[in-house]
């Protein structure tokens, strides 16, 4: 997972690349494996949730998401922690400093 976050003029812009095959049911059937894709993504700064999404099998492989949040309560140096859960129950998370 790659996480980048910048704070400028009170707005934090984040860009996250998740490494995940995001296998749809169709794709998995063809490969003879179980479908597995990220089902929930969450972003937290200092423990506060700032990004939260439930997802389907239709995000791209190795999906990239970008989002903006109001950054008044946060400052450069704070850490953005991005995490995901997938259909099989695997989880992964990564922290990055807000620049």
């Amino acid at each position, binding site marked *: 997972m790659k996480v980048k976050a910048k704070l400028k003029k009170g*707005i934090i812009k984040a860009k996250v690349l998740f490494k995940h095959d*995001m296998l*749809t*049911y*169709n*794709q998995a059937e*063809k*490969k003879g494996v179980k479908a597995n894709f990220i*089902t*929930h993504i*969450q972003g937290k700064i200092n423990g*506060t*949730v*700032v*990004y*939260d*999404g*439930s*997802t*389907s*099998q*239709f*995000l*791209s*492989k190795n*999906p*990239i*998401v*970008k*989002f*903006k*949040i*109001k950054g008044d*309560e946060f400052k450069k140096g704070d850490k953005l922690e991005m995490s995901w*859960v997938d259909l099989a129950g695997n989880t992964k998370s990564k922290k990055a400093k807000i620049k």
Partner: protein
Amino acid sequence: MERRKFLSLAVGALALAVTPAAVRAEDFRKMKPKVWKAHKVDDAITAMYGTTAATKSGVTVTTPDVAANGGAVPVNVKSDISAKTVSIFQDANPEAAVIVFECNKYTIIDFDINIKMGASGTITCIVEGHDGKLYSGTRTLEVAAGGCEG
């Protein structure tokens, strides 16, 4: 079957009633499983929000006119509406729901995601306002090579 349906409706209603203010969107996959199984966009919207009645303004969906690669179509949704949730659906895949964001006081509705689209189609974004109303924006685009086949 009917009793089960009624029970699950009742449980769902109860769960909603008890829900604290900060609901984690993960719950949406568990609380509203029908949203993720719905094939048609309207069915998915109804499963999520109970209705498809939405004001067709205030939400902008941006994508390229033609997506060269159906496996990674960049989609941006923007809105200034004070919202509880933002959902994105499309009609080019086996199921209609793509993603449901839970919004809070930090959220600026300016989301970028990249999605798979099996064919050319229309993306619909619903913004659930704090005023209890739904707002929608759509964007139709062509996909050169379908993205669901791997």
